[in-house]
């Protein structure tokens, strides 16, 4: 066999491996109900319940922010984020949370927001917030 064919096979193998890793690693969008049934982390898409309290008291814990989110199926859940309130949080019209259930609370490690711009309905800005971790 020619060397270039062997190398070609190696490259194809790596490419397939990459595709498999990506799709094995890919997560899914779920609901709080799904989150309660699984141990692993997942992403939940929902809306901030603006009627309920947003809790942040820097004097008690500067890394504790909690709020209530209604997922797409209408289920509501308390969400805890280990960080500060992200920019534009209260203006968001949709939130993507990444995390898992701990007891009755959903602990989010990342919040991604879609915010409508104040004046133009057709424009949407997206901002992202992560509970920062010191690992690479």
């Amino acid at each position: 066999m020619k060397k270039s064919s062997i190398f070609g096979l190696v490259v194809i193998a790596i490419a397939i491996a990459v595709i498999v890793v990506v799709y094995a690693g890919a997560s899914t969008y779920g609901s709080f109900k799904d989150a309660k049934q699984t141990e692993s982390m997942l992403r939940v898409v929902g809306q901030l319940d603006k009627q309920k309290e947003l809790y942040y008291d820097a004097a008690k814990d500067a890394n504790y922010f909690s709020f209530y989110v209604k997922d797409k199926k209408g289920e509501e859940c308390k969400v805890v984020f280990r960080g500060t309130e992200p920019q534009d949080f209260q203006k968001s019209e949709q939130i993507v949370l990444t995390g898992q259930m701990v007891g009755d609370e959903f602990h989010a490690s990342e919040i991604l927001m879609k915010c409508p711009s104040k004046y133009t309905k057709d424009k949407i800005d997206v901002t992202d917030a992560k509970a920062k971790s010191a690992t690479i």
Partner: protein
Amino acid sequence: MDKAFQGEHLLPGHLGQFFVILSFGGALLSTLSYYFATTNKDLADNSWQRLGRWGFIINALSIVGVGVCLFYILYNHYFEYHYAWSYTSVNLPVYYLVSGFWNGQEGGFLLWTFWQGVLGMILIWKAKSWEKPVMTVMAFSQLWLASMLLGIEIFGAKIGSSPFLLLRKAMADAPIFSQPNYLSFIKDGQGMNPLLQNYWMVIHPPTLFLGLASVVVPFSYAVAGLWQRKYKEWVVPAIPYALFACMILGTGVVMGSLWAYESLNFGGFWAWDPVENASIFPWLILVGGLHVLIVYKNSGHSYFTAVFLVLASFILVLYQSFLARSGILGDTSVHSFVDNGLFWHLVAFVLVFLGLALYLIISRYKEMPISKKDEETYSREFWMFVGAIFLGLSCLHLILVTSIPVWNRTFGTKLAPPIDLVEHYNIIQASFAMVITVLTGFTQFLKYKKTDTARFFISTLVYLLVAVLITVPVDYFSGLYKLHFVFQLVMLGSVYSLLVNGKVLIDALKGKFKLAGSAVAHIGFGLMLAGAIIAAGTRGLVSVNESGTVAIAGFDKSSQGNKISGDSHENMMIYKNEPVKMGPYMVTYVGDSTSEPDHFYKIDYRRFDDKGKMIESFELKPKVQLNDKMGMTSSPDTKHYLTHDLYTHVTALPQPKEAPTADAQAAAAHGDANDDKNYDPPIPHEIAIGDTIRFREGYMVLRALKKETAIQNIPMTDSDVAIGAKIDIVSNNKNYSAEPVYMIRGKSVFDFSRTVDDVGLKLRLTRIIPEKNKVEITVYQQPENKKPWVVMRALDFPFINLLWSGTLIMIFGFLLSIFRRNKEIKPV
């Protein structure tokens, strides 16, 4: 046009729109003319070529005209234009108006087409016999870019988006626009996102767009070569342009990450955001393409790979533009634009050029000079080829993950990106980086065609051994050994590449100077990777809570050891004037200052040696903009050292209405007793002169009692008696003084309290007890949480300067190579 509106300035818009259409017309004329010039068999006939040149010049000049009109509108704040209204405001300084210029998608296209116009001019001047076919492709690409700015509708489909769109057209439904004098209500634009008000935003976009625009040149050469069946000849003239594109695009991307690091608050220089990833697709592929072009030039191997990668690099430029502008990344990216109706137009832009590239590859495949012979295993060309393929694989991985929303849309799936996305990218990309750094090392010991194997193995292994000997202590002292082993392998690869290329550079300086360019670029690349790995991997958290401030007990316990929240206690609250120990520093929030629209929070850092002697003291002023439209926007301030950076930003502030200082000041001014509820219950103290009162954060001493002759603006009469108590206060090693006053007027008694905001104290002289020779001082102290505070996050980035200096060195290496390769072009 049916209604007359007052106060609109329509001329610059009409003129601008005229130039937009003229630029489209010029590009069309140029494309067609150059096409006929290329296909014309009569070589003596230059008329088509002349026409093509004129078309291109018209196009380029019109683009300048569009730019001038747009800037005129922004400069004069004509908010009847949607663009001016959306991105600028009256109080924006002129240099930010420049960044407002490319704030929107239209401005981005304008910048892109401008640079492509400049490059086209250079090609007309320099390309000689290649001008006709190369410029056909360039003009065709200009045609597409010009169409992006047209802003017209044909059969309901939107073709392009014009920067001269009027506000009342953009939002035709809004009732305000039914009034002819609507403009008198629109006094100001929306203003620019505070994050973009940064000098990097003035220079980063032009650099990045020049980089993106210049990728079209090697692409055009490749297309021209295949089209004209001059399969071999296009390679040599394309190399300097490919080097130029790699150099500028790389610079632009790193400038973007420098901007993110200096002024954004995600705490790093690279976040693997889809838009960031997309900007390096073409870079990775073109760097790979560049290497195989050189392989082909020197050995005749890897022709197909070279063609493929060069063509792919420009397709990826178009693809990244689609990803960033079509709104498809809405769910996954922070930076992406919103679709403004151009989705299918952008798709068409990608597909047309993809189709062109595929057609040429397929139809010319059989004629391509693909070598039948296998490369030698111990040859430089083989391993350079392998390196290029690995760059391609690294890019493939980025594309696969970044495009998840595209796959979802195409195949109707509902995939979400991996949960720990950063980790996912870091590990996989580090694996590729490791292979690539090792290849940039040992390939230097190989020669083209055939190499003496024994010598090759000896030198490779000797250098590898030295690299291991260096990497181990580096690993240990930087703390890299705590990370995933793959990062240590990248470190080893980088060190190895640095050593080998250092040797090549030394040899080059001794004589073989033309090899210096690649050695310098590889050294820069190695340093960049080493810097990035150390800075991101061993990033230290400075704002850790070491003093044991209150935390919600239950919560912390339940989540301790929990993967989500284990490392995320990064924010720390500090009260004004209360020093807190953070890492090696004593940190104090000492005050704030305002220079609208920025609020600066002064954070004082001090470092002491073991004996308690201060060895360092500096102040950082992280910035916050509070703005109704954008909310709270925070930008860091960074202390730069040679070997590390200390990065600080504010993450939360007291709600403005609760701000105790404002209340206390208002209360003091009005003598308002309601203010007392801002304090803990008052404590009266009976003391004599010289006595001390202790309070939570310090103590105070009554120095003297003295008769006052005037109290603020209250006129005193002879029958009034006023006594002031001079009190010195010491809190947190700082001295303050206050003088509350007690006053008798007729039969009434008043007292005038004094507040010391920095300490959160209010003092009243409430009673005078002559028989005991004492006075009663009532002390009001603010509860902890009413005192001014900020929540901040401080990070330490070790050796981040390696990343920046590595980039500079790499750019310099590219520059050297451009000079060298430029000399190799023989005029045809």
